[in-house]
């Protein structure tokens, strides 16, 4: 039986239309692909990621006015925390790399 980590229904499930995943921007699908690739490589168990996702969604739900709902923003928060907990990517490293990418000359295609 193939590994089927994704929830298909419920608050934790990624948005779908007619069975197909829906992404608001290319980076969301990239993030999705990155997460699945890490999982398949055995970097974490799916339930570990899912717990962080549930927590990140719960935080938004406690303060819904604080920011617009974006499913994949919750997903990204969850992934960052999971990778930090596993000592695979510290917030410091990630902040640093993000700043470096932001310093690229204008016109670069940000996916």
């Amino acid at each position, binding site marked *: 039986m193939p590994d089927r980590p994704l929830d298909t229904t419920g608050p934790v499930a990624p948005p779908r239309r007619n069975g197909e995943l829906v*992404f608001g921007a290319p980076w969301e699908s990239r993030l999705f692909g990155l997460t699945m690739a890490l999982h398949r490589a055995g970097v974490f168990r799916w339930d570990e990621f899912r717990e962080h996702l549930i927590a990140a969604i719960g935080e938004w739900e406690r303060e819904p006015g604080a920011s617009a709902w974006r499913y994949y923003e919750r997903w990204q928060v969850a992934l960052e925390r999971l990778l930090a907990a596993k000592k695979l990517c510290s917030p410091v490293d990630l902040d640093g790399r993000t700043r470096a990418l932001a310093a690229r000359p204008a016109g670069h295609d940000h996916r």
Partner: protein
Amino acid sequence: MDGIHDLGGMQGFGPVPWSASEPSFHASWEGRVFALASLAIAAGVANPDAFRHAIERLDPVTYLTAGYYGRWLAATELLMKERAGKTLSPLASPGTLRAVDGAPRFALGDRVRTRRLHPSGHTRLPRYARGLRGTIALVHPSFVFPDTNAHERGENPEHVYAVRFAARELWGEGAEEGVQVYVDCFEGYLEPDVP
């Protein structure tokens, strides 16, 4: 209209961008575009045929480079400008299926010839299939006639037929072997093919 939108058979576009590494998932804005277009149509900004024709009337460079969302936006702006100050009339009845008096003129297997139309307005007979000989492959129901409906000259429903063309009829000697092309034609586009 013999516009840029009528792409069937045009050459020079290169490979179909099918297995690009850039993902082509459905962006959530596509759903919003669809919803807004449906609302605009329901509110009477334009009927679906007029909407399609507005997209067809974009200049060729915009049409080819604006992308799906850009085309839709540009067409909406065009329609809003053209309809400024006019009262909107919401769609009389939904959908495009309409009853007509009288039986279909053509039957399965009939040989037909498409007219050599070149209307400046909206039509759904592609250029590549005009003035050519085909066979009735399917008799469909009757529908709102887009050529008049797009210009608010009435629904004038007609029967539609799937007309089968041999590839050689469409493209001449260089055509691929073993290919048939089916084009859905309104009755008004067809005349009997008499030997």
